[in-house]
């Protein structure tokens, strides 16, 4: 090579630079294209596709006799695709036309269109449009490109407030829900989710799978082609154990009562299935579906009646507690059932006079009469004899202070009153406390749910089943998942004679005692009234009852609480009667169709079967 007076070795330096740069680029390419492909491909996919989600119809909710409690109905939403209009004047013009023809707020529409244009994404301008707008829109569509209508399924509760505390409601997500569900591809920002009750607990089953129209758009948001139109999969249908007639009877009865507030719980004593479940005041779940948060619209000071009286309301049980005291008295063996106490209308406890509810007094009272007439003085005497510890023990056996175990949130467990809790609080127990305990006053608290469980246990011989309300779930593909399996939580073991005496007393209550208003022709009713003293206002009225037809195992046990109902006999008993009649309607019709059979005699009972 000739000497060119040039430093050849300098080129090696340059080549090293060149080589290094190439290597650097290749490494960077490995990072981008080999290691992070999925990440970038995901973004690219999101770039090019836009989805107009179509929410799947939520699963329907039926009562046991297949009346739809919650269903879905089609609703129409107005969609705007950007990319067709440019100038602000055109947008204003379109918004004006739409708001005039569809009767929607002009500002809303205008800002919606602007949002669509600036984000280059389709936007829902209006939701829940009436079906008749379809016609109007098909006209507008021809004039203004870019608007379209899609059909979606919206939650609908045909009976409004009916069963609202159990079913709950659906609504828009709030921030907390969104942070929880944003990872789930089945939910989008404007999905509706169950916010309370059944709708919340069975959200996963009811939701179904959203469908959607997948569009391919170019960089300016203009529609290129429709990639895929995915059909929704409807959610699973839920069949409840609720009897629609009994539920209706309960709601109607409670609504017509003095205060219109309270709770009704009806259980099937054989299984623990919930037959009726009412809590008043209630609300119309439909109002949440459309407007989102109705709480915002309520006047200040008003709160949403989400408080579930049947599960969360704790009340002094009053005389219905005498069932438990009675059990304690009989089981203790310290008082014979025939033994009588004299009731002058009051009881002198030395330091204080305790009154019987009947000022005139009941004269000589034995166990059955005591229970029938609900004589307080009998229970003062006998209860003292049996002992407060005994009563406390049976109160616990009847699951006071324990949750009923129903699959609903925020249940309260009531309160057990007795020497035990007092001792735990390092306080004293007085004779007056025993007297109060025996007649269900004092600190004893019970929820309507617990009262229903108690009377159901009397009906079925001491079994406490876990209350349930979902009978079966029928999935979209027709597969049925049975859910209602009776589950025994505990059992009260009593002597047969005790059960008989208690039942006889309860039957007398309805037949000739305080609960005569609940009498049903053709059925044997067992019940107990209760009036819970309420220091804050009028007394609360209780009634617990169950009924048998033809001596078959009882099919229904009811607890009714009417807040400020004054007297269990007048306020609560007729509601219980209506509910039981509704549940037993089939049996009663059969029975009444055979008129020759008198109800009372045992021989005839056998013949009717």
């Amino acid at each position: 090579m000739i000497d060119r007076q040039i430093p050849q070795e300098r080129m090696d330096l340059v080549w090293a630079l060149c080589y290094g740069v190439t290597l650097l680029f290749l490494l960077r390419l490995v990072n981008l294209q080999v290691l992070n492909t999925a990440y970038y491909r995901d973004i690219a996919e999101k770039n090019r596709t836009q989805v107009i989600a179509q929410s799947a119809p939520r699963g329907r909710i039926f009562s046991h006799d297949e009346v739809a409690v919650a269903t879905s109905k089609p609703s129409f939403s107005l969609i705007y695709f950007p990319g067709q209009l440019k100038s602000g004047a055109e947008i204003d013009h379109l918004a004006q036309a739409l708001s005039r023809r569809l009767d929607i707020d002009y500002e809303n529409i205008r800002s919606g269109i602007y949002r669509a244009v600036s984000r280059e994404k389709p936007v829902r301008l209006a939701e829940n449009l009436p079906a008749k707008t379809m016609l109007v829109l098909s006209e507008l569509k021809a004039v203004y490109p870019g608007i379209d209508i899609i059909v979606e399924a919206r939650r609908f509760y045909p009976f409004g407030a009916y069963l609202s505390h159990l079913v709950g409601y659906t609504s828009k997500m709030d921030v907390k829900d969104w942070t929880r569900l944003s990872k789930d591809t089945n939910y989008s920002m404007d999905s509706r989710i169950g916010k309370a009750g059944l709708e919340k607990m069975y959200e996963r089953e009811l939701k179904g799978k959203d469908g959607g129209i997948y569009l391919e758009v170019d960089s300016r948001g203009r529609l290129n082609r429709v990639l895929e139109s995915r059909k929704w999969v409807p959610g699973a249908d839920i069949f409840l154990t609720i009897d629609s007639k009994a539920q209706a009877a309960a709601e109607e009865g409670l609504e017509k009562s003095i205060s219109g507030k309270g709770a009704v719980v009806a259980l099937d004593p054989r299984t623990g299935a919930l037959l009726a479940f009412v809590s008043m005041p209630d609300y119309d779940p439909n109002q949440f579906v459309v407007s989102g948060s109705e709480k915002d619209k309520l006047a200040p000071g008003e709160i949403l009646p989400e408080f579930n009286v049947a599960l969360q309301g704790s009340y002094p049980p009053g005389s219905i507690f005498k069932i438990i005291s009675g059990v304690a008295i009989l089981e203790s063996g310290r008082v014979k059932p025939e033994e009588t106490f004299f009731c002058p209308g009051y009881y002198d406890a030395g330091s204080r006079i305790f009154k019987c509810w009947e000022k005139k007094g009941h004269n000589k009272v034995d166990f059955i009469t005591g229970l029938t007439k609900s004589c307080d003085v009998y229970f003062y005497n006998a209860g003292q004899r049996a002992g407060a510890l005994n009563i406390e023990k049976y109160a616990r056996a009847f699951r006071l202070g324990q949750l009923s175990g129903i699959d609903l949130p925020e249940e309260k467990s009531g309160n057990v009153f007795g020497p035990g809790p007092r001792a735990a609080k390092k306080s004293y127990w007085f004779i007056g406390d025993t007297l109060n305990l025996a007649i269900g006053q004092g600190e004893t608290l019970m929820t309507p749910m617990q009262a229903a469980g108690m009377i159901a246990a009397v009906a079925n011989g001491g079994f406490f089943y876990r209350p349930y309300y979902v009978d079966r779930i029928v999935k979209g593909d027709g597969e049925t998942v049975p859910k209602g399996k009776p589950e025994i939580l505990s059992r009260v073991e009593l002597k047969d004679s005790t059960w008989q005496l208690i039942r006889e007393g309860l039957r007398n209550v309805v037949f000739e005692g305080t609960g005569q208003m609940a009498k049903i022709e053709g059925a044997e009713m067992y019940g107990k009234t209760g009036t819970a003293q309420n220091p804050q206002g009028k007394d609360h009225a209780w009634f617990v009852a169950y009924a048998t037809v033809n001596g078959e195992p009882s099919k229904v046990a009811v607890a009714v609480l009417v807040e400020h109902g004054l007297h269990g006999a007048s306020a609560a008993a007729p509601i219980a009667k209506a509910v039981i009649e509704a549940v037993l309607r089939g049996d009663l019709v059969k029975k009444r169709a055979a008129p020759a059979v008198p109800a009372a005699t045992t021989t005839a009972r056998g013949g009717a079967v």
Partner: protein
Amino acid sequence: MIFTPQGGLKKSRMDWVLFISVLILLAVGTVAVLSSVAALPQQARIIRVQFMAVPIGLIVFSAAWSLNYQVYQDQWKFVYGFLLLFLFGVLLFGVVDKGARSWYRFSFFSLQPSEFARVGIILVLANFLDKRINRIRELKTVLGAFALCLPVFFLLIKQPDFSAILITFPVVILMLFASGASFFHLAIILGYAFISALFPVLWTMITLNPELMDSALIGYFFNLSTSFWGAASFVAGVSVLAWLLWQLSVRLYANVSGVYCAGAALVLIFGFFSGVLVKGQMKEYQQKRLEVFFSPESDPRGAGYNLLQARIAIGSGGIFGRGVFSGTQSRLGFVPERHTDFILAVVGEEMGFLGMTLVAVLYAVIMRRLMQCARLARDRFGYLVSCGIFGMFLVYFCINFGMILGLAPVAGVPLPLLSYGGSNLVATLMALGIAESIYARRYALV
């Protein structure tokens, strides 16, 4: 000219490795351009131009290859004169497109003289350095080389076509380096360029993180430059400091030449002022480009959009790509300028990692062969021209790949042989033809 040395071996007259690499790149580029223009309104014109430019380019390549490259040295005055005339003419007769008057428009094609200017300047500069190789270590020669380029740069700024300057400036430096210029002079030039560039870069970083304002003192220096007395005191301060340093070195018997100290001071002063000047002259979009280079997410809908979308396109390609003609990012218009500056995004998306590696490796092969060509050149002029062409490819490669991979700011520079652009393609093939001509007329038997 057939040269058959003793021994009967026939010298290859063509660097086939280089040529085939170029052909493959052309094929890849054409496919990518065809794919990328699918949705563009100018689709028909672009395809027509591409299919016209490739054969014309190959004809020019063959012509440059068969012509003895020494002609350019002998006729350098004509080359230089034609170059200036060509660039000057466009200012008079050119048409404005995208804010720059840089196109001759003829009835059925357009010509962009700045693309040919970068080849011409290599030839002229190679001649200049070849003639003054004995005085290459003098500052005069280095300054002379820049003086030679100055009219060309001036005409380019007038268009304005900054990307041509951006490409040419490093090529000039590389040619000076290859011809054996003194490291000191190169350091002065690079230092000057560095300090001039530093100012806008620092300024950008401060606008991104305002809390740095107080700590970096840059605001202080910027305010300094706005008043005459401030500027004067800055000059005086730097001069005194340099003098003191020199004095110190003398006292310590370190014997640092005064020239170095003076040079350093001058670089600092001039770099500072031209930095302020550049900062002041920078257009809004250039400022933005710098900003998004430092933080691409700062403006995802605006200036950062291009870069982000290009990166998404490349990343989504994966190893094997999404298939030719089926990249969604580029075909649906998310990647802007996808047939020119961002052609690599299309290659990356549709041909994947393998396609990108092929392009990068082919570029490396071409550069390697150009360097080989420089080594084997018959004379110094050939060596310098080859180095210039090599430098040109290196600069394009670094800037375009760097930009698309997020390692360099967006500069609006196409990737020759791949990007769409008739003049660019023809000029590039002409340069490669000249390199082949040098290779064909070498001494060695390789």
